[in-house]
């Protein structure tokens, strides 16, 4: 046949017809012209004339006009990668084509989208936590200028020191102090224990947040006598005052004293951000005579840097003032540090969150590697399609773009599904998260999280799509068409790429499993810690008499006595007692003490002990064994000589090698005339505030001999925590205990009712949270690695059917085949694992802040992770290996 193509092509050039159709038209018209030519020749026309006549009958304009209405929009041409059109049209064409390709293979698409949804969703969820906790500014104006001034960067300082800093420092535009306060909201239907803060009048203004209703404190309202005003949170306003705007000016009673509500803060407001985070009410802090006190460190100082003043200058100035105060008042003023507020809020949690973000990022990388591997296998299966398109003239770049469009489409679908998964997991994260993570309740999807989701999806799409796209498009078109897809040229490069992908999955899996393993070891270490008490079967509840008639100095003793006796008489109760601050769940006070017979310590150098006040029976109730001596007894009263039980640590540190029983210490009036307490018992060390911290020296005084607890008007001495031991489920005891308290006085407030086991769980909530997440990531990593190796080995077996058939027919044993296949899998896994070990060594160091009792390079953890992964690789390779042994040699050779 003569070549008519050019003549026809020239006439079709102006038309937008989809490429396949165009080819058909050219063929059909060529056919016609050839027939016409043959006819003319048969009629005797010379070659040239026949040819010219046939071509002339194409009559360009008529043909073009006639075809114009069958010409379709450019889209379809773009799909085949032929036409150079507008970028947007190409993109939408690519996407439409991609949608069609995925629809053809819904199972494949579903698996890929699901894999990606898990990866992208988990990343989005963790990022939303990071976003809220680490990235979002604190809910105050220009929060980068806010600092806190704290002892050793963590603890409160004394009122007199605060007054000195405020008077002398020039680096700050404003400075104020806050003190923890938990008054009872009384004279209401249901009295309630409220978390609150006392603030000097400067604090709220320096935060720069306007109240939603009313006003905040004005200068001078923190003067004694004028401090009976309160600003409340949005939450308290809604919960207790029905969101009534008339609440402004209303009088409420806190611990029985009248306060006027002057303002309601907006819902977004929370203060303080790093401690007392649940405060719902703020009242002025009137220091009064305490302004001169250099003991009683209870103030946390907040300040805003003056305009143009940097942190370093402020630090230098505070250091200078601190040094000068230390000279003037030795021992009262050490290690005071200026810390940026943001750093204070998120500094401790940052490393842990970044570890989680890194780990979940690895999970996504693994998911990408898996998807890339699936796409590679699919690209191989699509050789013919690629070859056809290449033959039709699609450029390589054009086809890479088409492949990428498909991966991006998959990634975006994955992102959509991932968004659902993220929404769901964020709820779970909030529910599971420990209280130590600041602002975690505010975690939500916002614009930044959505942007992250989108960027992650696009990056993931390019990441897992690029290799298959390049590989797919690199195909030798004529080769593939000829080979008809059997693809002996499937080739080393392609399989090497697949191996590399799976190996990298294994490397990532090692890192993730080591992370999870370290967390498991760490948590096991935490669980193994001896609390020093027996938390099982113990119910605890805070009992606050403030604002009730039981707060009267003359009535507390009888009330506490009566309460303990009645609770002890409840069915199922084996013992009951009270303590000022419950271990692990309550406050902790560290007080200096003097030792009889020793020279007075220099200022600031007195030994200190954790200060507890207990009712008789506390040690029995909590299950703290007494090493020596006796418990505080009912006979130890204000009228009898003072007694104290100390813990092992105090006894060992104060009287090493001696018997502590009979020794005397004093907790009050350390400098003047001490009130001596005789050590009557030595208790085993029990955990105090932090679960992992080795117990400090601790002293248990008798509530009945401690005037503060019996008569002190202050809020901090008007509550004790009831501890009740039962043989049954302690939680079931709660209603009976509540009724008992109510029957004595319905205005006494109960708060924080929980079992001791819950308190212990709360103390280890943070590591448990990390364990849970890293464990989940590790499990997902294991699954992905298994699927990856299984996929690559099965694929390889399916490609090597012929080779295996030849081997078998040449006398290879089934065992040889298994060894061959499994060996291949293990080589890939081993290579990856080796890289993974190096990676894990490099990255696990980032975890050191969240580990307990195990080093980041713990050999046992590494060994177990490798063994587990090795087992998974073995198992995953064995399935395709067994399949390979069932290959029938004759059958496989015939298929050739």
């Amino acid at each position, binding site marked *: 046949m003569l070549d008519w193509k050019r003549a026809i092509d020239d006439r079709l050039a102006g038309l937008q017809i989809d490429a396949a159709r165009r080819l058909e*038209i050219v063929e059909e*018209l060529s056919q016609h012209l050839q027939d*016409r030519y043959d006819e003319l020749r048969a009629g005797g026309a010379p070659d040239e004339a026949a040819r010219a006549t046939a071509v002339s*009958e194409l009559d360009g304009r008529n043909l073009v006009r006639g075809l114009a209405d*069958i010409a379709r929009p450019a889209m379809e041409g773009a799909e085949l990668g032929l036409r150079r059109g507008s970028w947007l049209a190409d993109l939408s064409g690519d996407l439409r084509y991609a949608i069609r390709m995925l629809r053809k293979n819904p199972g494949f698409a579903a698996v890929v989208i699901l894999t990606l949804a898990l990866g992208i969703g988990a990343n989005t969820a963790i990022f939303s936590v990071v976003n809220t906790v680490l990235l979002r500014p604190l809910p105050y104006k220009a929060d980068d200028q806010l600092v806190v001034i704290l002892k050793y960067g963590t603890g409160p300082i004394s009122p007199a020191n605060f007054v000195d800093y405020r008077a002398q420092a020039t680096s700050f535009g404003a400075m104020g102090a806050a003190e923890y306060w938990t008054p009872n909201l009384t004279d209401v239907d249901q009295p309630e224990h409220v978390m609150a803060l006392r603030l000097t009048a400067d604090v709220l203004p320096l935060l720069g947040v306007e109240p939603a209703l009313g006003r905040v404190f004005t200068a001078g309202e923190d003067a004694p006598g004028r401090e009976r005003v309160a600003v409340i949170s949005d939450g308290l306003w809604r919960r207790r005052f029905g969101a009534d705007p008339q609440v402004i000016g209303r009088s409420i009673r806190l611990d029985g004293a009248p306060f006027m509500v002057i303002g309601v803060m907006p819902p977004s407001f929370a203060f303080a951000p790093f401690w007392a985070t649940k405060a719902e009410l703020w009242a002025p802090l009137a220091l009064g005579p305490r302004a001169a006190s250099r003991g009683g460190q209870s103030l946390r100082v907040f300040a805003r840097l003056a305009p143009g003043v940097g942190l370093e200058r402020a630090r230098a100035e505070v250091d200078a003032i601190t040094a000068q105060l230390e000279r003037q008042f030795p021992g009262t003023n050490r290690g005071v540090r200026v810390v940026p507020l943001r750093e204070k809020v998120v500094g401790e949690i940052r490393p842990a969150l970044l570890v989680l973000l890194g780990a979940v990022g690895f999970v996504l990388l693994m998911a990408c590697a898996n998807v890339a591997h699936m796409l590679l296998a699919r690209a191989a299966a699509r050789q013919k399609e690629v070859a056809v398109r290449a033959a039709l003239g699609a450029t390589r770049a054009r086809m890479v773009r088409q492949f990428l469009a498909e991966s991006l489409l998959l990634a975006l679908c994955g992102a959509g599904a991932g968004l659902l998964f993220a929404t769901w997991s964020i709820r779970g994260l909030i529910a599971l998260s420990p209280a130590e993570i600041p602002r975690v309740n505010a975690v939500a999807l916002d614009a930044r999280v959505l942007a992250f989701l989108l960027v992650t999806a696009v990056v993931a799409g390019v990441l897992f799509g690029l290799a298959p796209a390049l590989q797919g498009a690199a195909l030798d078109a004529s080769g593939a068409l000829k080979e008809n897809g059997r693809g002996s040229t499937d080739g080393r490069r392609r399989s090497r790429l697949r191996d590399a992908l799976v190996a990298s999955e294994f490397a990532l899996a090692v890192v993730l499993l080591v992370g999870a393993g370290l967390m498991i070891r760490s948590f096991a270490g935490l669980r193994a810690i001896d609390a020093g008490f027996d938390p099982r079967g113990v119910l605890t509840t805070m009992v606050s008499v403030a604002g009730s008639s039981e707060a009267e100095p003359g009535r507390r003793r009888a009330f506490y006595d009566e309460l303990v006796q009645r609770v002890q008489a409840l069915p199922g109760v084996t013992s009951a007692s009270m303590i000022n601050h419950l271990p692990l769940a309550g406050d902790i006070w560290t007080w200096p003490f003097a030792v009889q017979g020793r020279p007075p310590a220099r200022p600031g150098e007195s030994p200190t002990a954790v200060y507890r006040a207990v009712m008789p029976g506390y040690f029995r109730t909590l299950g703290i064994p007494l090493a020596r001596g006796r418990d505080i007894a009912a006979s130890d009263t204000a009228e009898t000589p003072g007694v104290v039980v100390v813990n092992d640590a105090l006894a060992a540190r104060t009287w090493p090698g001696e018997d502590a029983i009979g020794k005397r210490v004093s907790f009050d009036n350390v400098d003047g005339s001490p009130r001596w307490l005789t050590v009557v018992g030595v208790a085993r060390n029990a955990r105090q505030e932090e679960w992992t911290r080795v117990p400090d020296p601790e002293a248990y005084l008798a509530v009945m001999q401690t005037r503060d607890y019996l008569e002190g008007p202050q809020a901090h001495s008007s509550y004790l925590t009831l501890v009740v031991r039962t043989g049954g489920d302690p939680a079931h005891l709660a209603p009976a205990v509540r009724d008992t308290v109510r029957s004595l006085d319905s205005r006494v407030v109960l708060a924080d009712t929980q079992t001791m086991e819950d308190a212990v769980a709360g103390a280890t909530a943070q590591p448990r949270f990390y364990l849970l997440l890293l464990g989940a990531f590790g499990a997902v990593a294991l699954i992905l690695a298994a699927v990856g190796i299984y996929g690559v080995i099965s694929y390889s077996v399916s490609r090597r059917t012929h080779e295996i058939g030849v081997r078998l027919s040449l006398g290879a044993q089934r065992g040889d085949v298994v060894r061959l296949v499994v060996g291949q899998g293990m080589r890939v896994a081993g290579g990856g694992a080796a890289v993974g070990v190096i990676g894990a060594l490099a990255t696990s160091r980032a975890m050191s802040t969240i580990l307990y009792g195990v080093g980041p390079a713990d050999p046992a953890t590494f060994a177990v992770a490798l063994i587990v992964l090795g087992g998974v690789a073995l198992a995953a390779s064995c399935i395709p290996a067994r399949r390979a042994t069932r290959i029938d040699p004759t059958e496989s050779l015939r298929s050739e």
Partner: protein
Amino acid sequence: MRYIKSRMLDRELKKGSAELLILSLLEAQPRHGYDLSKLIDARSGGVLTFRVASLYPLLYRLEKRGWIQGRWIEKAGQRRRRYYKLTTSGATVLASQRDTWKEFAEAINRIAGLEQA
């Protein structure tokens, strides 16, 4: 008839009747484009000719409307060709076009008095 064989009339008549011609020729059996053009030429005694440029756009248009359907068919020892066959809806259209054409032709005849000539 020969008097009025001006180019214009030719074109107008062809336009109006072309669809009917193609559908009619495909009624009996599937045919390829060249076959159709030869048949029209032969059966009209050379009065009507369909060259490439007018035939194929017409075929494609009919195909697009779903009246005919083209399919590549390879026969032994031949290049493959695209054969068109009449579809069910094409057959319906053909019947209705035939009626219309018949009425039209009769009307023309009555007015132009060709019957008496």
